[in-house]
């Protein structure tokens, strides 16, 4: 699978590079542009041998992946709270690196009713945009099926956000996390548009795009992402696919896993168990 996906990746890259160059050539700037095209390789190539972000961390040794067992999630939203605190995310209802969706089927209805903690009714129930809660709106209804689905950046193998960034400020690390260089991002929000999962948002304070990094500052020190750390039911699993005994490998090997919106070709590395036809 790894080989296939890396082949895929290089094929796509090569295609994009060729297409990009052809386009540039047609507009008469071929020579100039071909030279700057080498930058793509620079990020994925020579940097790969250096340690990042700390001196004793080698990103070529790891291949991170994330598992979400939706059947376990109880919608307590501790993950959302932990993420906001850990990553200094704006304490309002419009900026989330991770969020949780609630799906409820009522008797006689074919489509699920969906909401998240940033729904106005739920905010009214909690009394504050910075306190997260699901209200009890279905207490008088006959519920036939209900479940929660945690969402976050899928750290795709073919991330459309990275594809569209005009300056290359967002990139995929060797260990499989999509990051944003806040010092280089111009804040055009093209990546926010391109993400099919709504995982990116614009950070008004930094003037740049923002998203989940799987707590890159933690995982490169051997810690778990904050959301995984606080989940009381083990609905969130994180680990290294290069480590045969890791919990993420166990999760993927012992379950039939899905990814969100596979038709986009983005190839997420967040694997789900317990999805439903209504989840998108």
């Amino acid at each position, binding site marked *: 699978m790894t080989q296939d996906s890396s082949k895929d990746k290089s094929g796509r890259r090569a295609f994009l590079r060729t297409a990009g160059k052809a386009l540039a050539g047609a507009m008469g700037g071929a020579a100039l542009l071909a030279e700057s095209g080498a930058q793509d390789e620079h990020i994925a190539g020579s940097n790969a041998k250096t340690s990042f972000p700390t001196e004793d961390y080698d990103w070529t040794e790891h291949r991170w992946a994330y598992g979400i067992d939706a059947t376990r999630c109880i919608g307590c939203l501790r993950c959302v709270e932990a993420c906001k605190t850990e990553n200094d995310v704006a304490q*309002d209802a*419009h900026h989330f690196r991770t969020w949780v969706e609630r799906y409820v089927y009522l008797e006689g209805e074919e489509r699920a009713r969906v909401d998240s903690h940033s729904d106005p009714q739920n905010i009214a129930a909690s009394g504050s945009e910075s306190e997260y809660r699901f209200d009890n709106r279905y207490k008088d209804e006959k519920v036939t099926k209900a479940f929660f689905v945690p969402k976050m950046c899928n750290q795709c193998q073919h991330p459309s956000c990275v594809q569209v960034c*005009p*300056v290359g400020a967002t990139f995929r690390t060797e260990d499989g996390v999509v990051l944003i260089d806040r010092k280089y991002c111009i804040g055009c929000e093209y990546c*926010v*548009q391109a993400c099919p*999962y709504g995982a990116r948002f614009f950070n008004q*304070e930094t003037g740049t795009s923002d998203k989940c990094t799987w707590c890159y500052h933690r995982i490169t020190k051997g810690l778990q992402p904050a959301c995984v750390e606080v989940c009381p039911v083990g609905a969130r699993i994180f680990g290294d696919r290069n480590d045969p005994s890791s919990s993420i490998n166990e999760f993927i090997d012992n379950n039939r896993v899905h990814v969100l919106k596979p038709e986009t070709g983005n190839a997420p590395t967040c694997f789900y168990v317990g999805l439903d036809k209504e989840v*998108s």
Partner: protein
Amino acid sequence: MEMLVSAPFTGYVYPNETIIPWTLLIAIYPYLTGLVAGAFTVSSMYHAFGMERFKAVARFALLISLSCMIFVPLPLILHLGHPERAMNAMITPHLSSAFAMFGFFAAFYVVLLMLECWFVFRADNVARANSSTGLIRAFYRAVTLWSDDVSANAREYDRKWLLALAIIGIPGAHGLHGYVGFVYGSLKSREWWGSDLMPVVFIFSAVISGMALCIVLYVVAAKVRRIKIDFACLKGMAYTLWGFMMFTLLLEALEFANLVYKGREGIEIVMEYVRGPLFVRMFVVQFGLGALLPIGIISAMIARDTRGKAFVIGLTISSLLVLMSVFMMRWNVVIGGQEISKTMKGLLTYIPPLYGRQGILSGLAVMTAPFLLLWVLTRLFPPWGDMSPEESK
């Protein structure tokens, strides 16, 4: 930090979607590039294809195109979170991005337009330098780059360059604008945008908007300067506008029909949007008032061979409606795409703020700027009157 305006929504939308990323300014950007491409087309009808009836408006159209083009990057830069880093896109373009080429395309096109203007107005500027003194003379001398040879030989040389530039400019202008369509159409995250027809629709609507602008400004300029309107020229523009409008309407209908007929996942929410909030904006304003009505007016005028004042008034009103319709189209594409949630389970409503960088006032300022520049340019380089000798064939 600008005040956050969140978009109210119905159904289910991803929490991060409630702040609409691309706002009024990003709707203005394709509108401006469209005007550039359209005005350039009008100018090239004479300069590249030698259609004599467009002579009266050809040089003016070129100045309109230049004035709009200079301000095309402004709405984009104003929208950036870090405007000071805008040049990063040209210093280190990330080639897989549909947007990385914008700076190069825009710069190329500004240079092309300036070069063409230089050749078009060179003989006039030489004459102006020769007939004035002091600073004014120095200014016009500098504008001609101290090239004051207006011999028959030199004019022939100018003419060759002009032809080449006008010809290169056509794919250039349309490429620049089709590319804007690609920026939206190539995104797979939004059903409303992800259409292969998007670039073509953008090009055709660009031509009609630029042509309509040339008609309106030509009529206004003629009234202000109290000169007789060149009826043949105006009628020529009316014919062309009519033809391109038919194509635009057909393409837009085709695009919409495709979306509905394919009926992919989430089509219910698209239909809810089209029948609800979009109905007035798209079917009444954009298609009804902005396309069918002007097509009707122009058709009737052509059929009845309307002439004189009635024709001028009818065509000007039709052109104003077209300008409004194309702006509405940009709005319905750019804002509309973001009002349909990526979840395909909910709809958002974008309410533009009045103040602030992304506000209505800021948008109005951006839209006014090209016309102020145009006014200055027409004072410095009058595009009307007898055409300079090197242009008459």
